[in-house]
């Protein structure tokens, strides 16, 4: 279970948000909404432990994520604005390396299968630099398929994706939620997701 207790974020001398409270149960989806510059990405970076909240605390199963560190990172996958792929490596190398980094090593077959599902079949051996924006996004999102983490934190996962890919991601997220996974995401696109519980968090 992921909990946020009176979180606040300060950028420079401007307060982006304060007193954000939420609690996310297994199988729950939290959508963070708000206009540009309202602190959605800052909130997500806090939730995944990249930055510290100016006030408040983030708890994972009742323990602060600060003191959990590695154990929390092993239970969480974050996909941000940056794709986290190396241009000079091939698609399959990227997936295998980023999975190994996240703590679970996969073999070529598992990687090809995930890439095939993401519609990148036959392109495994291409360097990522020749791919389009949408295809790079698919490579990044393929990490979700092979990950065994419970909590997914996704910052605008649908950007640059075509209709088919959006549908794929929708199925993937719903399946994850059905298996008692948790999803925290921001998106400006409309997406219908059925989940055991859905929380909407509005940042003004």
């Amino acid at each position, binding site marked *: 279970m992921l909990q946020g207790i009176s979180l606040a974020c300060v950028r420079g001398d401007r307060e982006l948000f304060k007193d954000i409270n939420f609690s996310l149960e297994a199988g729950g989806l939290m959508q963070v909404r708000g206009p540009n510059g309202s602190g959605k990405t800052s909130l997500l970076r806090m939730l*995944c*432990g*990249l*930055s*510290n909240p100016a006030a408040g605390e983030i708890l994972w199963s009742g323990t602060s994520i600060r003191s959990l560190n*590695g*154990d929390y*990172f*092993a239970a*969480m996958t*974050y996909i*941000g*604005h*940056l*794709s*986290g*792929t*190396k*241009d*000079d*490596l091939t698609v399959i*190398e990227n997936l295998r*390396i*980023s999975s*190994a*980094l*996240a*703590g679970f*090593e996969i073999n070529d077959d598992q990687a090809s299968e995930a890439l095939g599902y993401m519609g990148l079949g036959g392109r495994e051996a291409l*360097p990522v630099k020749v791919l389009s924006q949408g295809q790079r996004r698919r490579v990044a999102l393929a990490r979700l398929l092979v990950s065994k983490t419970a909590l997914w934190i996704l910052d605008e996962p649908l950007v640059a994706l075509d209709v088919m890919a959006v549908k794929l991601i929708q199925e993937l997220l719903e399946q994850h939620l059905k298996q008692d996974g948790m999803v925290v995401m921001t998106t400006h696109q409309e997406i219908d997701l059925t989940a055991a519980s859905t929380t909407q968090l509005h940042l003004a």
Partner: protein
Amino acid sequence: MWIIKRDLLLAMRRQSDVLTTLFFFIIVVSLFPLSVGPEMNMLRTMAPGVVWVAALLASMLSLGRMFSNDYLDGTLEQMLLSPQSLSLLVLGKALAHWLVTGVPLVLMAPVLGIQYDLPVEALFVLTTALLLGTPVLSLIGAIGAALTLGLRGGGVLVSLLVLPLYIPVLIFGAGAVEANMAGVGFDAHLSLIGAFLLVSLVFAPWAAASSLRVSLE
């Protein structure tokens, strides 16, 4: 460790980066005999200093790339969120940096030393000192690269931060060769560089990892 494998693979795909560092080293070291003139005695006395200064500059040349590419494409973010210890990952990256930039310099040094008419034994001492000293350069450099990550003009800043810290290695590295040529024992110098190496192996990855966390916040 696979992070070393990854960085070596990336270096293979971008050989130009590796070769620039090596050629920079070769050219800087070769400029001195050409400009000073072929006076054997003078060349012999300046050789250790010149080779070491060139090695410092060459290894610094590639420091900027150690983290900045990973920072720009988001893979560094993922490293911070890895369940594996960040210090170990940094250690792996520093080792990869040494394998790619340090080892070629070490291998090249005896060949360049011939230009300075160094005796065989001095060449051997020079190579051993470089072998012990260049990993220290990569490790200390990792701290500087992590601290200046994402800053404008970080390249100049990193040299100002890191070069003073290189001085002890420079003094004892060049000192070892001079001692050998003067007929004095050089063991003490090498032991001191070895000590620097051990201290930086323990301390530098931790310091660089903490700086990375600050830089990415």
